[in-house]
Structure formats: structure tokens, C-alpha cells
């Protein structure tokens, strides 16, 4: 299965994400904010996919993704938002985002999307 880098500032949500994704057979790396995502990647972590919370202290998921895309990273990325829909999340339209996940998370749908986006990875 795939290696997924999950970022959220809530430890509880990270634990929940890790549990569900690992149950589905994925390998999970976690980060507490956008800066940690960048640090992990700089340290050599090679995720097949990113699952980033839109709003986090220090550096948001959207800002982290913007930096990664700027550096030429094309790894699929889902933005998780506690907003009801993407309009509320003020999602940028100029950033390549592969989908939005709203809280509370519909894990059945999320796991399906993850499977689709990582189908080419092993």
C-alpha cells in the first residue's frame, strides 16, 4: 500500500487518521503542522500522498503545500478542513489540490479517495 504523510494540530485526530489508514494497510507518517511536513520531507521522508489540515499554527497545510508545489513536488494532496465546504475554507484556486475532506471525516469516502490517488504507488 502507500505511505501517507498526515498533518493535523490535534493529536487525537492524528491518532484517529493513523488508526484508520493503517487498518486499510497504509503506512502513516504524522506531522503537527505545516513546518513539520516540510521538515519530514527535507529529512528524506517520501510520502505517496499528503493529507493536510488547512488550518494549523506555525504553518498551515495550504502554505506548506504551496511551498512544496513551488519546489516542483507533484505528490497528490488532500486538504482537510473543519469548514463545511471549500468556499468557507477560502481554498486557493491557483494551487493544485486533489480534493477536499471536510470534518467530521467520512472515512469510507476518504479511504476510497486515498486508494484512487495512490493507485500507481506501491
Amino acid at each position, binding site marked *: 500500500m502507500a505511505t501517507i504523510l498526515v498533518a493535523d494540530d490535534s493529536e487525537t*485526530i492524528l491518532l*484517529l487518521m493513523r*488508526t*484508520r489508514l493503517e487498518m486499510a494497510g497504509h503506512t502513516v507518517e504524522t506531522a503537527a503542522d505545516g513546518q513539520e511536513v516540510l521538515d519530514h520531507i527535507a529529512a528524506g521522508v*517520501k510520502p505517496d500522498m499528503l493529507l493536510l489540515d488547512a488550518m494549523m499554527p506555525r504553518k498551515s497545510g495550504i502554505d506548506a503545500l504551496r511551498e512544496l508545489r513551488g519546489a516542483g513536488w507533484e505528490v*497528490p494532496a488532500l486538504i482537510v478542513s473543519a469548514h463545511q465546504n471549500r468556499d468557507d475554507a477560502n481554498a486557493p*484556486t491557483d494551487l493544485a489540490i486533489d480534493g477536499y475532506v471536510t*470534518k*467530521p471525516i467520512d472515512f469510507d469516502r476518504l479511504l476510497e479517495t486515498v486508494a484512487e490517488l495512490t493507485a500507481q504507488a506501491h
Partner: protein
Amino acid sequence: MAVIGVGRFLEQRQDFEDQIARSYQVEMEARVEVAQGTGGQAARDTVEREADRRNELRDEISADTRDTALLVAAGLLAGLTGALLLFSGLISSMRRPLEELVDAAGRLAAGDRSTRVEVGGLSETATLGAAFNEMAEELEQEESRREQLDRLKDEFVLTASHELRSPLTSVQGFAELLMLERDSLTPRQAETVEIILDNCRHLVRLLNDLLDLARSDAGRLSIRPQPTEVAPLIDDVVRTMRAQTEAGNQSLTEHVPPGLPSISVEPDRIRQILVNLLTNAHEYSPEGASIGVSARTLGDEVEISVTDNGPGIPEEQLGRIFDRFTRGDAGLTQRVGGTGLGLAISKSLVELHGGSIAAESTVGQGSTFRVRLPIAAAPAADGDGASGQAKPAEAS
């Protein structure tokens, strides 16, 4: 002028009377001479001449009388016209500012709070204009205060809903985790977890409804329609609802004919509407009930129907069902966890799409909700920018 004319006429009239009297006197004197035989031919001529002279005088005076009457009539007419002109001038000097006031009031009522009138004209209309401007000023300030409050309310609801979602995600997520291991739970534990999940779903709906309501009130409920296929949308909704209907031993069937045209909608919003309709069908119908979702083409619309064979909706409630805070039979609300906002919001959303929603029901037989949505103009060929981009995952 008429007065002068009449005065002169009266003078002439006096003169005429004098002349007539003198003429009679002369004639009488001549007649006396004729009778006495002293005047001879000259006296007889005098009698005739005086009679002729009086006739002439009479003709002259009657012509003068006619002229004077005409003059008086003309004078009266001129006076009346003058008065009329004066009066209409007065009226129009009042009417113009009044008309402007009426126009301005119309614009103000139509929502243009920056409307003001030019203060001028008679002192009465000027006072009225100033009062109008003062009122418009106050209305404008009041409106901007209200807009600010609306914004604050919207922001508050958005923030509150945002902050509540994170803990709710954890509660629901971990409860779902427990349910994944249902086999190792005792029946009582499983039931407990189900109650937790039910309430989580209720909370989520409450939050969503509150958000939509705040937005709808502020006129900020908006949609982004895109060509959307009907079948996958319905599949998705049915999948979401499956766990709940199965828990109630209710059958959930789907009848979507192949080849339905794409509709022009925002998929998330239609999902929300259908989930709302199916949740209602599920919650108001007893255990073992049948719930169905079907779709068909109707002219330039696609109709999606949600049908149940539950208790139905009494006719007197059916008319109010799309109003806010209206819910089905009070006896049921005890166990049905709704906000009474779902259908009102669904209706707003459907209408925002240019569609319509209707309900029909027979007590004891069940209810059907029909949602009609416009068919997309072009085939759903162009993909959505963000989600349609296929990017190869970086191989590890």
C-alpha cells in the same frame, strides 16, 4: 380696463339720458308752437328731427351697451385665466418637489438607502424634504449597523461551527472505530456506540443547518453549479445512508435508469438535500419500512424522488412542511432528532439551482418528495480544474 370701460359707459349713459330728455323737451316745445299755430313749418320740422335724433341716440347707446358687455366679459375671462395661471403655478411649485419625494420614497423602499431629495421650493415642501432626508439618513445608518451585525453573526456561526467540528470529528471517528469491531462488543456496548454515532450525525446536521440558515438570512447562500452525473451522485448518497437504514431494518432501493442527462448542480449541495430527504424518510418511518430513490427525465429537468411507505404527512401539515421550524407530527419529534430546518434549507438550495421541490403524501401509505433540477446545457466533458487534474503519484 373693464372697470374703466364700464365707468365710461355709465358716463355716456347719463349723457344719453340727458340728451333724450332735452330732445323731448325741444320736441314738446315745438309741438306746443305747432298747436298754437305760432311755429309754422320750422316747428313741424323740429318735431320730426328730434324724433329721428332720439332714434339715432338709441341705436348708438345700444351699440355701446353691447361693446361694454363684451368688454366686461373679456375682462372677466382675462381675470379668471390670470387666477388660474397663478393657481397652477402655485400647484406646480408644490407638485415638483412632491413628485420628487414620491420618487425618492420609492427608491428608498426599493433598497437604495443613499437616496436623498433636493430641499427647496415652498417652505412646506422644503420642510418635508428635509424630514425625508433625515429619515433616509437614519435608515442608511441603521442598515449599515444591521449589515455589520449580520456579518458578525455569520462570522460567529462560522467560527463556532468550525471549532465544534474538530472535537466532533474525534468523537464520531472513534465511535466508528469501535463499530468496526462490533463483533467483539456486547449488544449493549454496540447499542451505546450506535447512540453516540446517531447523536454525532445529529450534531453535524445541526451545525450545517445553522451555517446555512445564517447564510441564507444574510443572502449569502451561494452555489457553484457544474455538469454532474446523476447516477454516481445517488449511489454516493445511498452508500452514506446505508448504515442507518440497515440499523433500522429498512430497505433502501435505488432506481436510476441508464442514460440520464447530466444536471447543472453543485454536487455537495444536492448530496446534502438528498441526505436530508433520506434521513427524514429513515427517521419518520418505522422499522422494516421501504425507502426508495429514483430518477427520471422530465422535459429539460431531471426529477429525483425519495419515497417511503412510512406514516405519511397529514394534509394540514403538508402545506407548511417547507417552512422553518415545522416538523412532522409532534408525537414523533420525541424520537426524531431534527432541527426543523432541513426542508426549508433544502428548498432554498433547490431554488438557488433553478429547480423546484414538492411533497405529496397519503396518511398511512407514505410520502414522496420530488426534486427537479435543470439539465446541464453542455455534456459533462470539461473536468473541474482542481479535482479533475490527474497527477501521477511520485513513485517511491
